[in-house]
């Protein structure tokens, strides 16, 4: 893990910087929305990551519940704040885009509401984690909450297909050709991969911190600090 971290950090910085410059300066504007569509380059990656991060958190929680692996508990705990940030970022950028495009900051349609519930689930997991003193009990409780909330993920994904919503269907899917030309979606793909790498870096750092914090009375931690 220690050896991979700097590489991931370099790749993250390279992808995010090149992606954002490409997206803001070189990608063409949209024929209807003009330049305001460029917020997609932050909105879509953060929304995708918010959902992936939740799945990771729930799966790590399940592994912690079943196999009693402490590292899984720590990964689940560390991923919650990152996911909450991403969900909030997706909601805020969406609102900023929605005002000029739709004519409204917020609509209670299925996609927007289920995304808001995702943010609340993250906040609930964070709150539950800090409310329970015992680390093992906190991990169990948050894992159950995360697993219960897992049902929200397919609802977010398919909300635009199952119901009438103001939010448009996905532009970017794994199975179909994107509904935009290559000069628009390639920078978007760069940003999505960049966001995933950023997630990997911050999750590794946070998990490392968590391990050090939990083992703060162990001798190897003291030796590590005294060495520096």
């Amino acid at each position: 893990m220690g050896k991979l971290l700097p590489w991931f950090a370099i790749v993250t910085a390279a992808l995010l910087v090149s992606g954002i410059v490409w997206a803001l300066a070189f990608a063409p504007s949209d024929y209807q929305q003009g330049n305001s569509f460029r917020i997609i380059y932050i909105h879509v990656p953060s929304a995708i990551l918010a959902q992936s991060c939740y799945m990771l958190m729930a799966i790590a929680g399940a592994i912690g519940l079943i196999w009693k692996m402490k590292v899984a508990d720590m990964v689940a705990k560390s991923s919650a704040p990152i996911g909450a940030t991403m969900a909030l970022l997706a909601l805020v950028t969406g609102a900023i885009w929605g005002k000029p495009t739709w004519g409204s900051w917020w609509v209670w349609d299925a996609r927007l509401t289920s995304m808001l519930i995702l943010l609340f689930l993250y906040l609930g997991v964070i709150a539950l984690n800090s409310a329970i003193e015992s680390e093992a009990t906190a991990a169990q409780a948050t894992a159950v909450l995360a697993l219960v909330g897992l049902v929200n993920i397919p609802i977010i994904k398919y909300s635009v297909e199952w119901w009438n919503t103001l939010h448009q269907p996905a532009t970017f899917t794994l199975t179909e050709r994107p509904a935009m030309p290559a000069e628009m979606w390639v920078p978007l793909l760069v940003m999505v991969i960049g966001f995933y790498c950023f997630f990997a870096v911050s999750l590794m750092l946070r998990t490392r911190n968590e391990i050090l914090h939990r083992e703060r009375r162990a001798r190897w931690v003291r030796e590590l600090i005294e060495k520096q």
Partner: protein
Amino acid sequence: MNPKRKQRLIIVLFIVFGVGIAVGLTMFALSQNINLFYSPTQIVKGEAPENTRIRAGGMVVENSVQRDPNSLKVTFGMTDYAENVTVEFTGILPDLFREGQGIVAQGMMDESGVFQASEVLAKHDENYMPPEVADALEKAGKMPKPEAEVFNK
């Protein structure tokens, strides 16, 4: 796998699928309430509640937008390519509003069958393209038309 872990795995699967089924059934029962808007077909068929504020969604009919020269009043037709509803609105329309654009309007049906809107939102589709491409497609007459099923689920 030892029996203890197996038991815990079963509990975890039970939580995930149990909650999934429960929420799925609830959503199915509530599916009409979760829809943000009614389509013109639903309104014409009388599936939408009357004398109450509802949202209606559809495409603005080509060549149907009439602006009152003395006020902000606008009248236009809204369609899902099956049925039409006439909409009246007084106020400022979103930038994206034009003929052939998908919109969602909030308001009430009046006695004469006209939808009196108090708010009009533009519905953007998932297609993005640069202005030059849009121009070229327009000239060739190959501009993709938004699909009707977007408004009829």
